[in-house]
């Protein structure tokens, strides 16, 4: 099973993942891995997590046949996995409930997190409030501006939000600052990483907590259609919602995985966040993966209209999927995502998160090329309420 005990996703002589962190954190990572492996097989922990996922977060989320969207695009049948219906409005809660419960088991009174769009910050703040732990969240000042509503939500939930004004003032720098906090307070603090990124065991652990998305999808589609889907489509920033959907289908080779990255103003413009398509191998935030960097190994600024995808790295398991050709990674521009944002609102009465709108936008191109008997599942990873203000500023008038 992947990764191996070093956290390496191995291919021939090379690997992705690993643990590239300051020594101060190494024993904390070991402790985390030991505890995680313990609870992973512990009936009591899993039963408790299951209870919170169903009774608190509202799982299972429905798999909804988007009839009008299917009709409008005139091709494959489109299902939406409605993670936007989870408590707090995105898939992020699946992971934070797991990690904060684990932090409690480990006896850590304090949890910290980074956030880009604010969804993971809100989900961490929520879990911290519910389990009675102290929460603190790091957020870039640029993101604080574009996601003001989520900042207020975190504060309401009793979490302190630390603005991060260094570097590009976005998600990447929020992670740097969260790691600095963790290095300083490692004995009392658990760092709740929000995606399948970071040093081992995070990519594996976050994937496992998010795999509930794919497991449910599999059961639901079998019940609804009596067969597996042909395509799974999800957006990829760090890559947690897509990995959560893909992973349980890994062995089902007939199911195609498509990860949609933020192409921003177009990949040729240089203003994008498409690490898997335009990046090269590098080490960022504790693991070896595809990274957007210059020839000297400096991480370069990224751009996306969606704060949650605006990140110069990607989870190592996605790099592995790309390398072994298990998944295909494509790009969607800001404009295409904005159009899809409106399309879904107007055909299905669902306002998607700008992140998820990237997946919708790709399916808008893909579905018409496929036969009507083909099935696509889109992970609708979050709802768009948080983005309404941003979008209203960009679109002078709604089409």
């Amino acid at each position, binding site marked *: 099973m992947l990764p191996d005990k070093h956290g390496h996703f191995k291919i021939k002589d090379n690997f992705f993942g690993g643990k*590239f*962190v*300051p020594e101060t954190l190494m024993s904390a990572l070991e402790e985390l891995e030991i505890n995680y492996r313990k609870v992973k097989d512990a009936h009591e922990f899993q039963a408790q997590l299951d209870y919170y996922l169903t009774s608190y977060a509202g799982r299972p989320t429905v798999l909804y046949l988007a009839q009008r969207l299917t009709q409008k695009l005139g091709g494959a049948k489109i299902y939406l996995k409605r993670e936007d219906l989870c408590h707090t409005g995105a898939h992020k809660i699946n992971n934070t409930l797991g990690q904060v419960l684990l932090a409690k088991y480990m006896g850590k009174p304090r949890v910290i997190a980074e956030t880009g769009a604010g969804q993971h910050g809100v989900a961490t703040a929520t879990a911290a409030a519910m389990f009675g732990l102290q929460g603190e969240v790091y957020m870039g000042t640029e993101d604080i501006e574009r996601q003001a509503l989520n900042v207020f939500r975190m504060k309401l939930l009793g979490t302190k939000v630390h603005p991060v004004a260094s570097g590009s003032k976005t998600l*990447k720098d929020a992670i740097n600052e969260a790691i600095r906090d963790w290095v300083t307070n490692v004995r009392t603090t658990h760092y709740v990483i929000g995606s399948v990124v970071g040093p081992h065991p995070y990519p594996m652990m976050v994937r496992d907590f998010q795999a509930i998305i794919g497991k449910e999808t599999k059961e639901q589609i079998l019940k609804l259609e009596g067969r597996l889907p042909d395509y799974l489509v999800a957006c990829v920033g760090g890559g947690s919602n897509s990995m959560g959907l893909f992973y349980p289908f890994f062995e089902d080779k007939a199911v195609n995985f498509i990860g949609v990255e933020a192409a921003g103003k177009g990949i040729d413009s240089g203003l994008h966040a498409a690490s898997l398509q335009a990046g090269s191998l590098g080490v960022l935030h504790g693991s070896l993966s595809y990274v957007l960097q210059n020839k000297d*190994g*400096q991480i370069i600024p990224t751009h996306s209209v969606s704060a949650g995808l605006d990140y110069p790295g990607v989870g190592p398991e996605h790099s592995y999927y790309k390398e072994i050709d298990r998944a295909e990674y494509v790009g969607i521009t800001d404009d295409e995502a904005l159009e899809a944002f409106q399309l879904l609102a107007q055909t299905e009465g669902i306002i998607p998160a700008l992140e998820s709108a990237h997946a919708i936008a790709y399916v808008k191109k893909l579905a018409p090329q496929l036969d009507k008997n083909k099935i696509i599942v889109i992970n609708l990873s979050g709802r768009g309420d948080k983005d309404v203000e941003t979008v209203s500023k960009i679109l002078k008038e709604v089409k």
Partner: protein
Amino acid sequence: MTNRIDLKFDQLRKEGQKALITFITAGDPSLERTHELVLRLEKSGADIIELGVPFSDPLADGPVIQAASERALKNGTTLTRVLDLVKTLRQTTQVPIALLSYYNPIYKYGLTRFVKDAVDVGVDGVIIPDLPPEEADELKHKAESKNLAIIFLLAPTSTPERIRLISQASTGFIYYVSLTGITGIRKNLETTLEESIRQIRLITNKPIAVGFGISTREHVQTITKIADAAIVGSAIVNLIEQHEKDPGLVEIIGDFVARLSSGKSQ
């Protein structure tokens, strides 16, 4: 050829002396100034020079060194240019030089090419704060054959197993991180420091250098009583920032380091 870091510690041990290691970020405020600064640091009593290679995401560093990295990157400092600087320095000085770089610039440069070029220009060792020995096999293997020291870090949170692993893996010296945290100026040293060093000493004979938070002559005095070397970084870098445009920058830094150096225990 014997590594200059090893030679330095051998010599100091024979003389019953301790070492002062000084850190500055290369290219801050400019590579020309860094050249002058290195020569002055040596003259002022620094036994080993740590040259920081700037990185866009220095996650083990506090605000002082973060800002220095940003300034150096703005000046166009790259790993290639830092290597060129060492090459030029070697025309006038044989002071031991270790590069401090995050892993990505080295990884991107290419491990084989890096080890070869670093040794060719006269670099003696490398400190990589985000590279634990578990991920360093390839680099260590390449460095060993060329006698380039790979200096690993130990922290207060390191378990006895890790102390053993790192003591064994580290060459040149062992870098003990004095506190649970990031780099920066601190008022007081950790009270548990002496006991921690004693624990490491039980396991290894390699030189132990203590860094993070060490910023005054008194700190240097305390540290060199219990370890082989004291490492000062942020306090010097902070002074460089304050006098960035001062024509007397090199003298100011020289005076400060001479003061630090006078604290070395005999």
